[in-house]
């Protein structure tokens, strides 16, 4: 068997498993983090004898509870679409991770192996395409539950996600123009240079407005506070997943957390250098510590940055109040979208000017 096939199979198994394993960790971070922010203890009771592990056993208790709950289906819910909807939320979220590079290419037995499941020249477009499917899952969940609160939640979510998907896509156009590539690994590699030898040339410095708009749109896209209107409990009970319980409910939660990881990874790749260890290029790092340690360093840099953005999601959720629906729509269509278009326009003008200067001087 070819080494590339074997590596491909290993990657296709490990990366989703890693993403799935990050869910309990993030749930723990969310609970302990919220308790920390709100000055309380948070869940810390689940134990095996004297071992509590700072509440790290709670996710296990949750998982066991969800798995052993009765798989209940409301009588009037749709027999096919009701169980299908949670799957349509989780699967796209996991598929999106396929193009995220965890480190630079490695050379193994004469083959160059990318550190993502599939390296596509249009990787960014792929991410947007696949993640747009998860809207279907939420909409379908709202409709198939046959409950008016669920339906309202589903409709709200569709409207919100369509509105913000547009801004999400447009806000990165500027960055893509600067990099001139849609390949995530290429984009990460291009951010390895430095300005004046001290500041890493990360996308956030070249596209500060683009980054800000992207971050806001990402929060809305992940259905997280301050934009978690689809499940606004004060008006919609629990929104689109009101009628779901047990493992089906936890699949929605899994989808939400994996989407959080994916969007954080995308933010890091586009604006924070991806797997770049600051100030050290792949070649320099490899020459100093050798290939295995180089890959480890880059992976840890990537994971650390991604974890920071996951924490930012949690941080914002427990700090800001929820928007009102009309405010959400106004922000999306009248502020973020025009600003994204202006950002694209200005970036294109600057790049054109730079091109002319290089061409004439």
């Amino acid at each position: 068997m070819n080494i590339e096939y074997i590596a491909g199979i290993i990657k296709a198994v490990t990366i989703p498993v890693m993403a799935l394993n990050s869910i309990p960790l993030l749930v723990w971070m969310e609970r302990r983090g919220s308790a920390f922010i709100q000055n309380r203890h948070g869940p810390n009771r689940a134990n095996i004898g004297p071992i509590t592990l700072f509440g790290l056993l709670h996710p296990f208790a949750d998982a066991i509870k969800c798995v052993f709950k009765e798989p209940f289906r409301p009588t009037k819910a749709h027999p096919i679409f009701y169980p299908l909807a949670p799957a349509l939320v989780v699967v796209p979220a996991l598929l999106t991770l396929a193009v995220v590079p965890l480190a630079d290419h490695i050379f193994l037995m004469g083959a160059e192996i990318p550190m993502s499941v599939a390296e596509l020249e249009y990787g960014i477009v792929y991410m947007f395409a696949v993640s747009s499917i998860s809207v279907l899952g939420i909409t379908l969940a709202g409709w198939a539950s046959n409950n008016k609160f669920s339906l309202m939640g589903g409709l709200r979510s569709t409207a919100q996600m369509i509105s913000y998907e547009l801004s999400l896509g447009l806000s990165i156009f500027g960055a893509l123009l600067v990099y001139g590539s849609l390949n995530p690994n290429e984009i990460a590699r291009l951010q390895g240079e430095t300005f004046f030898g001290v500041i890493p040339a990360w996308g956030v410095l070249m596209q500060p407005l683009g980054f800000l708009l992207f971050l806001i749109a990402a929060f809305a896209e992940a259905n997280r506070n301050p934009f978690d209107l689809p499940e606004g409990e004060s008006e919609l009970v629990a929104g689109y997943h009101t009628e779901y319980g047990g493992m089906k409910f936890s699949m929605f939660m899994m989808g939400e957390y994996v989407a959080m990881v994916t969007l954080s990874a995308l933010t890091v790749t586009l604006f924070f250098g991806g797997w770049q260890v600051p100030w050290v290029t792949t070649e320099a790092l490899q020459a100093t510590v050798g290939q295995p340690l180089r890959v480890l360093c880059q992976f840890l840099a990537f994971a650390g940055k991604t974890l920071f953005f996951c924490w930012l999601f949690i941080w914002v959720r427990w700090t800001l109040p929820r928007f009102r629906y009309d405010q959400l729509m106004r922000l999306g269509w009248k502020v973020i979208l025009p600003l994204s278009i202006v950002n694209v326009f200005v970036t294109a003008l600057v790049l054109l000017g730079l091109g002319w200067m290089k061409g004439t001087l």
Partner: protein
Amino acid sequence: MLTTAIFYVLSFVCILAALMTVTLSNPVSCALSLILCLACLAGLYAQLAAGYVAVLQILIYAGAIMVLFLFVVMLLNLSDEEAAEGRYDVIRGLKGLICFAFLVDLYVLVEVSLGGRIYGCPAPGLGSLEAIGELLFTRYMVSFEVISLLLTAAVVGVVLITRKGPASALAAGRGGSS
């Protein structure tokens, strides 16, 4: 071998989903069947080494257009009975006849004009990012721009039609509730 198997599975599911789209009675089921059909079509594009076209197919049709379709279907909330009303009237028969005529037309086109010949694979790199970008900005530039203009006009038209209140109020910049 594996490629052929995948091709047949995709084609079979695609045709089945297309049939379900036109035969199922529940509008939401129809919309979802159409999404399945489009997804299979994307898979077929990917098999033709046109991965970018496949991704765009998912992004635009399955991700954007069909979500709007579903949104509208759910808002209208058509029930099965309403949709099934007047199942056997003349108009419906005419529609079926027209569709059948199109099918025959398609068959004749393929069989007669191509003479049953099977054309080979498209040139390598036809569906790549660069190739599509170049075609859009050179050969199809004008049509591309005209289509975007048309879509903008349609959007403005829809806003005008759905706005309540007399035209004079619109002209004065004080349209009805929006």
